[in-house]
């Protein structure tokens, strides 16, 4: 075993005044979001901008659903990185494996919240989704594979991967010692234990890779299988969900890794190599996603099926055009940045982090554009075009969730080494 740790690494257990101030701000936003949910529970979903499709001219799925999809998409990062590190032995990604897994767990927790926000009867939902589960519904996959399976696998992976560091941190006296002892659960880092851990994580990674594709696809199927909604009904829906999940997940991981490098001491191992790898991965995923977008667009405007065209027109030049073209710009500009970085090695982090932020904003907008226009402009019977404008409650709920997620990650970073402790990577 490596030398005993003198003190907890990466600022674990030490909180500065500035950190506390940040947490207070995030907590305030999160609480505002929960207040919005309280309003929704007490007064009904009438406090949202959602209304019925058809005669009432509204959209019945809105921001909540867009963000369910977005949060599940971001969870792509953790599992992918973990699997790449373990199966493809990508050494460059090793330092960010744990923060990626933490990001997965946190974003899935946020997705669960967003699902609860979206249900008219959340309590019944918790009971009935198990009691009367129907595998024929595309939602079944969302609840079993995405939320339960994915979340469970990520937690197990995070736990197993952290045992060695927990054992090392448990040597440092302090308030957190009991917690580390519990996590380490008697791990002694003998050769036999190392082998067993390595074997377990290998098989877990093997099991996780198909789950990665299937889980994001089932979420795409929620939309892609609906023949009655022009703009949704497409075989490309499932694969492009996987790709946009990758774009937003890797983009968010870049942002988080950059924040960690900037704010946490002793994180020099987050070097340009790590970011170059992430930047290139993002570039490839972006290229693939843009290709899918173009294919989808051509298909819907070429033949000009009436209702299909109406949805596309609403996107390209109608009501949703500002959001659509902003989303396109927020994909194309990062792609330009990333291609430039690819050819000019060692470029600064600024453009990369900006790319990460931009693709995430774009992913939120794209999720919104997948969910909403097909309801307001995609009715097969000649209802008049509807409209949907989110209310402040929905904005507050979603801002609250994002703040809550940031809070969870920041607290995790103070409870446990956000990166593998030096000397425990062999």
């Amino acid at each position: 075993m490596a030398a005993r740790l003198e003190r907890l690494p990466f600022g674990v257990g030490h909180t500065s005044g500035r950190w506390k101030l940040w947490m207070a701000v995030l907590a305030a936003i999160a609480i505002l979001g929960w207040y919005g949910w309280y309003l929704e529970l007490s007064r009904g979903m009438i406090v949202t901008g959602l209304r019925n499709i058809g005669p009432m001219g509204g959209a019945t799925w809105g921001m909540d659903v867009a963000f369910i999809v977005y949060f599940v998409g971001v969870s792509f990062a953790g599992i992918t990185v973990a699997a790449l590190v373990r199966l493809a032995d990508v050494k460059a990604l090793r330092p960010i494996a744990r923060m990626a897994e933490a990001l997965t767990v946190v974003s899935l927790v946020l997705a669960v919240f967003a699902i609860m926000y979206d249900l008219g009867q959340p309590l019944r939902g918790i009971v009935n989704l198990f009691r009367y589960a129907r595998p024929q519904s595309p939602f079944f996959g969302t609840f079993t594979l995405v939320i339960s399976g994915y979340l469970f696998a990520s937690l197990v992976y995070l736990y197993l991967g952290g045992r060695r560091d927990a054992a090392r941190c448990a040597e440092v006296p302090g308030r957190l010692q009991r917690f580390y002892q519990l996590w380490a659960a008697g791990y002694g880092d003998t050769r036999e234990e190392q082998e067993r851990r390595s074997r377990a994580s290998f098989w877990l990674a093997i099991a996780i890779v198909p789950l990665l594709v299937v889980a994001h696809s089932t979420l795409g199927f929620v939309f892609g299988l609906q023949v009655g909604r022009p703009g949704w009904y497409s075989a490309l829906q499932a694969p492009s969900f996987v790709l946009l999940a990758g774009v937003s997940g890797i983009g968010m991981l870049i942002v988080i890794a950059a924040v960690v490098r900037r704010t946490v001491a002793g994180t020099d191992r987050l070097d340009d190599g790590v970011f170059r790898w992430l930047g290139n991965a993002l570039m490839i995923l972006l290229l693939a996603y843009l290709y899918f977008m173009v294919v989808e667009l051509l298909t819907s405007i070429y033949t000009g099926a009436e209702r299909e065209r109406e949805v596309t027109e609403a996107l390209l030049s109608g009501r949703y055009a500002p959001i659509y073209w902003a989303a396109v710009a927020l994909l194309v500009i990062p792609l330009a940045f990333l291609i430039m970085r690819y050819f000019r090695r060692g470029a600064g982090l600024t453009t990369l982090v900006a790319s990460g932020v931009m693709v995430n904003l774009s992913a939120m907008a794209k999720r919104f554009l997948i969910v909403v226009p097909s309801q307001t402009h995609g009715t097969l019977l000649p209802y008049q075009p509807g409209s949907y404008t989110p209310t402040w409650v929905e904005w507050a709920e979603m801002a609250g969730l994002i703040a809550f997620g940031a809070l969870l990650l920041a607290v995790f970073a103070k409870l446990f080494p956000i990166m593998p402790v030096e000397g425990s990577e062999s």
Partner: protein
Amino acid sequence: MPRYGMVIDLDRCTGCRACMESCKVENNTPEATFWMYVFRFEEGEYPDTRVRFMPRPCMHCDNAPCVKVCPVGARYKREDGLVATDWERCIGCRYCEVACPYGVNTFNWTHPEEQYYLGWEDGAPPWANPDLNEPYGDERRRIAGGGRDEGVIEKCTFCVQRVEQGLDPACVHGCPLKALVFGDLDDPESPPSRLLRKKEAFRLLEEVGTEPRVHYVGGGPPSENSKQIDAVEARV
């Protein structure tokens, strides 16, 4: 067992919307909610224009997309052809609503007492129908209009509370021109079956494979230039 269906004679419909009114009174639906809806179309270009009407109840599809997607089986197909909503089981995810190509589902966006024309808390409104709270069918599930719990979905029930007593749905009963005909489509001598033999029929959006149990005779389906006369906007 009879398998119910409806035939709508567009030649007879004058767009008076008495069916919408009858439905509202029978099922006590909330404000801005219409289980039965009558399209009023303007077609063509001046001077070659015409106005026509098309009632749109729930299609009670045999291959109902809403039944398929419901994650908890609250929306289900009954043996007698009705597509029912168990409002005691519904969790309010509104998947049925986005899956339905006809736009027939409506959601209870707020508490019942806040969305009625008259106060619910001062006892039942004058037209309240106790039959709406009863369980129906062999399954004994609560599928008629019912308590209107906040946060659950509802839609046209073909007035299951009347059909099980051998009566016609309220819209059929209330139509002054007998444009709506209800009955057992498996029985060749039932009024809807006879009407289907007499006139050429079509069903709405047959191309999406939903197998609707509502048939139309007289006239044709709405086309690309069918524009609604009445403006709609999101309101509750």
